[in-house]
């Protein structure tokens, strides 16, 4: 039996995390392979944080930041820049760049939230688990 894939969602407390709570308030179902970690702003994460997560066996990452609604100054541009740096690093390691997605989600973005989760699962259905791409690479923590 194949292991269920895991989507890590990094969501801002003022945006995506509250948006996920709104989805909950509406009792709308989505896939359970979604692990949402709150953050103040994803600007905190350096490039290697994402690569490390993939290497540990996370199949996909959606960053739900606050975009233009961010309560912080300058972090939005910063996040975009970091993620732009991550893509070529992923390619270099042979990781499909579709596994990483940056999207702006606000507190009432319930439909976009559900769409992001659905689409990422569709992508995973096509490209398969991360192990396949990491190939020879030893997947740590999954021994």
């Amino acid at each position, binding site marked *: 039996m194949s292991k269920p894939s895991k989507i*890590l969602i990094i969501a801002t407390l003022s945006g995506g995390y509250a948006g996920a709570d709104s989805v909950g308030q509406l009792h709308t179902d989505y*896939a359970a392979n979604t692990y949402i970690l*709150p953050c*103040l702003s994803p600007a905190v994460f350096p490039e290697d944080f994402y690569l490390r997560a993939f290497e540990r066996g996370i199949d996909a990452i959606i960053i739900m930041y606050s975009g233009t609604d961010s309560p912080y100054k300058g972090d939005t541009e910063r996040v975009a820049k970091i993620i732009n740096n991550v893509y070529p690093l992923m390619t270099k390691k042979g990781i499909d760049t579709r596994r990483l997605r940056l999207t702006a989600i606000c507190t009432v973005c319930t439909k976009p939230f559900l769409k992001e989760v659905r689409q990422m699962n569709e992508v995973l259905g096509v490209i398969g688990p991360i192990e396949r791409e990491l190939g020879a690479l030893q997947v740590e923590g999954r021994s």
Partner: protein
Amino acid sequence: MPKKANHGDEPRIAVYICYCGGNISDVVQCEQVAKALSQQPNVVITRTNMSMCSDAAQAMVEEDIRKLSVNRVVIGACAPALHEQTFRGTVSRAGLNPYFYHHVGLREQASWVHHDDSSGATEKAIRLMMAGIAKARLLEPLEPIKLDAKQHALIIGGGVAGLRSAWDIARRGIKVSLIEKSPFLGGHMAQLESVFPTGESARALLGKLIEKVVSHPNITVYTSAELVGVKGYVGDFQVQIRQQSRGISDDIAEAALQAPLPEVPDEFNYGLTQRKLIYRAYPGAYPAAPAVDWYNCPDGHLEVEINGQFVILENAPKTFDLDVGAILVASGFRPSEPRYGEYGYGELPEVITLPQLIRLLALQKSGDKLIWNGHPVNNVAMIHCVGSRQIEGIHEPQPDGQVNNYCSRVCCTATLQAANELHKRFPHIHIFDIYEDIRTYGRGHEDYYIEASFNKVRFLRFHVDEMPTVIHASKGEQRPVLVQVKDYLTKGQEIEVPVDLVVLAVGMMPNPIDDIIRMLKVSPGTDRFLLEVHPKLRPVETAVPGIVLAGTAQGPMNIQESCAAASAAAAKVAVLLGQGRVELEPFIARVDPDRCTGSGQCVEVCCYQDAITMETVSSNGHKIRRAVVTPANCAGCGVCVSVCPNRAIDIQGWTLDQYEAMVDAIAADLPEMEAMA
């Protein structure tokens, strides 16, 4: 120093999973989660409970902390937004630093969104809890940042809600600056004649409140004033205000009102009358001095003949700063504007709105006939729920593409109050009230409904998918307009009502305040009104600390409800500022001086003034450069963290090490689940 130096000890973690009275346990198999977690390193106790937030369960947590020497607590329950603070208090009471608590949301993000996937939700809950435990191992004791709070509040909006909260805050000993965009105080309440349910004069009541406000030594009122900039944080906001000139000195005030000037539609009477470019909104308005309508003077100056002399009045807006501890948004509502052609609005001169009718009745003080459009009015149709209770697919959307799917709360009673007023003053008029539901819910409101029935107001009830139509009557008809209704009070008969006047009971929409929303970083809800954190737990607060809501900026309310909300918001401001000190979460950047090599990259990327600076310090006799954080200026965004080449900087309470441990916990296999599969 924290209460106990227990952070250096080996972690001893207590883990709890809440049933939430079935909300969680109906989907997530809580006992299985508990079992899976009980074997985790450092976990000394795992329990489930029907309701973790109950007093008994909190007492249990306290007891566990004491008896089992627990030094970290993880609870899986509802959203952290609801109860994280509750449980920080719980662990604190047991003598633990409150930041040794970690909260995992299992309701909004698991049980409520995976109804049909109990095993998936359970697996997810286990992993999320494992991540929580992983973070808990790395938690550190933190102390809140204590800041002095300016005992001064800014109130945006000079309608009844803003005025009422100004008065409450001022009486509590806190200074208030109230800004009103228009040149006069009073808002929409000034446009009413009598208020339900008491029948008191609206402007007399309002006048008394304004008098209290403007004479209170703690309150400064700025009319024609707008918010143009905000900096800072709760306890210490620096706000920038721009105020237009009044334009007219007191000595020429009365003469200026007489001056020959172009006229524009008078917004006070919703365009039923014209007013000059120098005007006083209504007799008795505050401030009494007339104002120049700069909006209609494109170049910011107006040439006018006063007392036979030509003068040029100039608008010289001034901008100034205020330091305030809290901001109260009471920016109010506007009546929704019917779409062109909606029930004949705009097409037929006989179709007006309820606010217009109220002004019309005020303007026609005398006479035994109501005159509209030059004709005496004998039949009136009043149509409810215009611009309210709209349904997608049935109603045309508003210009922003959304329908107003909410009830505007005040229109039913206001319509019946107007109907009774019409009947009282013009008993010959036949009134037809066309509605879906009559919502005279408030104390004393039902009396207006009973009175209207007694007054022989004819009620006609339509279904939302069979809305009435308003058309021009054919030539030769006695009445200019025909209203066609499929009336379910008379077995669904198609009824044609010939009328002289159609009154649309329009609803409420929030005033357009996009700039304020942007500056304050507050959020509107799907109905466009400003969003509170939680309607029951934190009903007047926004998600931004120090910014509170009052009145119809938050949703439709009548005057009584606006005043209650305004006072409640004032109480919240008093809680925040009354003691002169604000405590903030300690989630700010922290530099590890042993790791910092003084690269200065953090300073380059930081967007906050003086939040992080490079300083030269002595270390073992060497002068070296190190980054230093100024806590009050740091917002905690973490931009500095990701650029540091040495991992020398972190956000307290949200460290990269903690995140990596959480990711590892989520990625790890679940031995138990595998065994099951």
